[in-house]
């Protein structure tokens, strides 16, 4: 089992990537009760934007910025001008919105296919993040360590931001009691759009970060969105800390299954989703017992 450390590191790295994606999804669900299946679309958009930027300017850092900003703006618009007005019409909203965002996911994949074709693109690892380091007896790519570091910093930053800042407390407040927060004079509509946009932006960054490891292709968002859903469900919908643990579980389970028992590769994370959904719908770490 000499390669075990390698697989574990890869699992953690995948977990960090999934966390970057899942955090937006889980906060949006907690806040707005919207199961945003289009999250994968923003991941795809981010990846393509990052690819284009990196090719035009050669700067990976700029690619990260553009990969955040474009999905942020699109997410903001989607929430503010499409999803929110539908919520106001008082339909059986959470199902409608899940189906609507499901459509967006496919429409974006189709648009990307139309513009870029169905070929695979790859983004080169920037020179300052290339090479390997010796870690636990394996030569491990620096870039993957960067992904782990990025995910960890983001996780701590977000947990700190949500638990220790005014904006964070407003968001958490709105998760618990939307009306009360609105009564305090906060523009909930704007808050929702910003949070949705930020989630989309993070998904976009996730796309850029994933680009050098997994390739960039039109269906990338559709593949990843289900894994992200698993993370969100395992961690408990709306639970940021939970989704970090969930992301690590899913990342490790996926990677180890792929390495040691490839027959189960496609199976493991769905089985996890199924079991948690059936037996612990509040998530493994759900404390509030939020009913969905």
């Amino acid at each position: 089992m000499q390669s075990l450390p390698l697989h574990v590191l890869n699992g953690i790295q995948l977990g960090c990537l999934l966390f970057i994606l899942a955090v937006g999804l889980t906060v949006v669900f907690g806040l707005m009760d919207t199961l945003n299946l289009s999250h994968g679309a923003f991941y795809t958009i981010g990846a393509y934007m990052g690819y284009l930027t990196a090719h035009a300017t050669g700067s990976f850092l700029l690619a990260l910025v553009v990969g955040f900003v474009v999905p942020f703006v699109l997410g903001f618009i989607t929430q503010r001008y499409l999803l929110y007005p539908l919520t106001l019409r008082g339909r059986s909203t959470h199902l409608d919105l899940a189906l609507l965002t499901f459509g967006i996911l496919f429409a974006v994949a189709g648009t990307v296919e139309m513009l870029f074709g169905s070929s695979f693109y790859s983004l080169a690892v920037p020179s300052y993040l290339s090479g390997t380091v010796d870690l636990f007896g394996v030569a491990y790519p620096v870039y993957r360590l960067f992904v782990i570091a990025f995910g960890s910093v983001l996780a701590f930053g977000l947990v700190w931001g949500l638990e220790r800042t005014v904006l964070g407390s407003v968001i958490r407040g709105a998760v618990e009691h939307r009306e009360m927060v609105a009564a305090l004079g906060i523009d909930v509509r704007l808050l929702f759009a910003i949070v949705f946009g930020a989630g989309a932006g993070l998904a976009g960054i996730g796309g850029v970060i994933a680009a050098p490891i997994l390739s960039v292709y039109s269906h990338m968002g559709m593949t990843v969105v289900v894994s992200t859903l698993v993370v969100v469900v395992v961690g408990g919908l709306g639970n940021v800390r939970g989704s970090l643990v969930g992301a690590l579980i899913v990342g490790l389970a996926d990677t180890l299954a792929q390495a040691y028992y490839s027959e189960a590769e496609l199976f493991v994370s769905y089985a996890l989703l199924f079991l948690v959904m059936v037996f612990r719908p509040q998530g493994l770490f759900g404390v509030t017992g939020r009913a969905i």
Partner: protein
Amino acid sequence: MKAAVAPHLSATRPADNSRRYRNLLLGLLAGALLFPFFWTQYALTIGTEVLVAALFAIGLNILIGTTGLVSLGSSMFVGLGGYGVGVTAALMGLPLTVGVPLTLLVVAAVAGVSGFLCIRAKGVGFLLVTLALSQMAYGIATKTKSTGGSDGMTGIPRPDFGWLGLSIDDPRVFYAYALFVTLAVMLLVWRITTSPFGSVLVGIRENERRMAALGYNVDAYKIGAFTVSSVIAAISGIIQAQYTYFVNPESMSWQASGEGVLMVIIGGAGHLLGPLAGSGIYVLVKQALSGITEEYLLVFGIFFVLVVTFLRGGVLGVLSKTWEARK
């Protein structure tokens, strides 16, 4: 959970509009029966595709329209139907007269167990859990070598109508076969939805707690709806596999499930003829657009967004509103 359809569109609704419905139904039936004699081969292909899609949507409508449970994993049972015929006929060498009932029995058993597990989740949770389940089935189908893995299986046999002096390889005969099965299923579904069992399902859709308070075993009814819906999906899968002589894991993809949901919503969830209208419109639009653009996904996605945003009651929802307004 809230119902997926507007409360005034109930499944057992035709009472006021029954004459109009009957006329519409008779008109459609006449059209469908005369179809093979006037139309080209190409039109027959489309017609058969519509029927196969309609069968799936009819099954799904029991879950979405009548009971108010939105599943995003029903294509799993379409795939199971196809694989069932494939395995019993191509691998085990059983005749269709044994293979098809056996397949449907197995599907009913699988659906019963998975229904029992899935209905523990409510609302969006149900959507997620059915999605997870179908993805598991998809994963198994992709990895099972004896059924061809991700390539799928070929050599699915069609029924033999030699004793009627007809060849099933004639597209007209296959169309008639698909039409016969579709009509039989529609009749069955009509009986089910207008039965006391169907009324309980509508009750669950409208107000689950009240039905439970009235003493109905809500869970058992939901499992029943799930099973009936799944068996019908499997029938659709069988005919689809026979039509293409082929079955592969893609028939279980969540995109396929999404298509089913889309067809139900386009047609009008909860209406008996809704799935037929929905699948007709969907298949025709898809065909028409495939001549103009290759971007199937884009069309599918935009179609989905537009229908959910503007046409939530579906075509028949709009139609019955117009009828009511004219009264």
